[in-house]
């Protein structure tokens, strides 16, 4: 019956129009209410005023009335104040820790992806295992070992050495903690990139007379560039916002990072919400380039998967 079929078809076309946006709707609304609005709240609080009687932040939702005094105080502190020192320290910590992660992570990823042979599955399992152990547990494990009189100290005593107080404000302990904490997140994307390189490309380079070293520098390394960048961005983003690693492995003001200043203003006091929000915006300015790069990368990956 042709009329019936037509009715059914137009019904289907009608359904087709609303069914897809309808499915996306709950998720989109959720993200608008609990991601976009909260994101905006950072700005509303940072550009708001402080209630002089109760010393509480009063957010200003209308951008027309935004008051930049709290924000400009933070910016002033960033250039030539205490916050400036902390920002420089944060950048140094993140840069050194990321470099060390790459230095150690690259050979590991290279070995597991291209040279591990028969035991590949086992090696892969070994580099995946840290993913399933909570970050805080991994830090706690080091606190156990580095506590006064614990295993590391006893190893020092064994050789007649006098160990330093590891957990009382040592820069290298915090940096090594960051390396320990984040390196698995760099190794895995690197592993993925190295694993995708076609063995025949490398053979071609060697057949054309390149030495193994030259093959590595001119072929393997350039082909793994995307993986290096992705891995670095993935570890640098959370590292910039880290406050728990320095808190756990030092707790001294000597090792405070930008995340700690935010943690102090938000988690430990409520009166300074405005400053905390302004500090968060400053932090976002620091990581904006990283975020943008990462956004473009995963956007592109999705597009490629679709095609």
């Amino acid at each position, binding site marked *: 019956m042709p009329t019936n079929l037509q009715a059914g078809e137009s*019904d*289907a076309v009608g359904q*087709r129009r609303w*069914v*897809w*946006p309808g*499915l*996306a709707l709950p998720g*989109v609304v*959720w*993200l608008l209410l*609990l*991601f976009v609005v*909260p994101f905006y*709240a*950072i700005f509303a609080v940072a550009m708001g005023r402080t209630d002089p009687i109760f010393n509480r*932040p009063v*957010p200003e939702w209308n951008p027309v009335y935004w008051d930049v005094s709290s924000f400009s105080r933070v910016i002033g502190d960033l250039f030539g104040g205490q916050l400036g020192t902390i920002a420089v320290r944060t950048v140094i910590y993140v840069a050194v820790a990321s470099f060390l992660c790459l230095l150690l992570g690259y050979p*590991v990823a*290279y070995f597991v992806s291209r040279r591990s042979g028969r035991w590949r*599955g086992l*090696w892969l*399992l070994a580099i995946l295992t840290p993913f*399933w*152990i909570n*970050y*805080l547990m*991994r830090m*706690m*494990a080091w*606190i*156990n070992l580095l*506590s006064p*009189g614990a*295993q590391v100290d006893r190893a020092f005593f064994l050789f007649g050495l006098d160990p330093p107080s590891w*957990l009382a404000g040592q820069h290298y302990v915090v940096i090594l903690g960051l390396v*320990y904490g984040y390196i698995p997140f760099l190794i895995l994307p690197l*592993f*993925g990139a190295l694993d995708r390189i076609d063995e025949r490309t490398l053979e071609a380079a060697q057949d054309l007379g390149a*030495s193994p*070293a030259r093959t590595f520098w001119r072929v393997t390394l350039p082909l793994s560039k995307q993986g290096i960048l992705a891995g670095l961005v993935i570890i640098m*983003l959370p590292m*910039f*916002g*880290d*406050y*728990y690693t320095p808190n*756990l492995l030092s707790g001294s003001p000597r090792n405070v990072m930008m995340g700690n200043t935010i*943690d102090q203003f938000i988690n430990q006091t409520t009166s300074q*919400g405005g400053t905390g*929000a302004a500090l*968060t915006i400053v932090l*976002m300015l620091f990581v904006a380039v990283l*975020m943008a790069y*990462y*956004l473009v990368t*995963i*956007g592109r990956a*999705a597009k490629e*998967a679709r095609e």
Partner: protein
Amino acid sequence: MSSPGRGKPNPWATSRVLTLTTAAYVLWSLAPVAIAITFSFNDGRSRSAWQGFSTRWYVGTREAAESVIFDPSLRSALTQSIKLALLTMLVATPIGVALAIGLARWRGRLAKPSNFLMLFPLVTPEIVMGVALFLVFHNLYGFVPFGTWAQFLGHVTFSISFVVIIVRGRLFAIGRDYEEAAMDLGATPFEAMRRVLLPLLSPAILASFAIVFALSIDDFVISQFLSSGASSITIPVRLYAGARLAPPPSLNALATVLMLTTILSIVVAGLAYRVWKKRSGGDESTVESLASFEI
């Protein structure tokens, strides 16, 4: 050993350096945790001197109240973490699956911005999301109490995008042919989805449940920013609070329980992923599937 006279370096030599480096890395990355786990079974109160095997820090006695099961603060952290993870899993997965299907098929004007919006939580540092949620619950959504409810809303928010990424990968692999065949045979889009697409997506959905559970139970930053008082302290927050205070091995035991829970959920996710890879003709091992998962 490679002899310096030859032109080419011995490939075995470089391989040996690589093997040693990797072995050293693996040892360095796992040994501290292995030691921490070992001392959760210590018979004494020390976490650095071995005094014999015991499970007292896990089960202990009600009177001593020092084990994961009987210490009120450890037990409450365990139940809070599991409660939160289950709740998050049950809400974030359906929303994420629907969002993934909607975004993959919808061609309207708002589809692109929505897709862009979905990617944002993935690239936002957790501390920024923590501050944002803290401030919005404080200043605008005053009706949401800090503690379990705020934590639950926060966890779902960061989990949705992960579900979308997992499900979308599978959606692209399936393509639109099956659905269109169903619709050519007279099914409405809704029927085609329910009877054709969702069964095909079931491994990805199961994997999403497990991954969201693992993400939620492992979360520290959001849980901490949105907690209120002792009752809403989760395992990671409890580890953070207690790690520097010379705690008894029961804290190691709690951490070990958390680790085993995470591994269990990841294994479920890995098996689900494997089913799907097999169906689509891949021949990866389980470990390889797990790896592609984390990337």
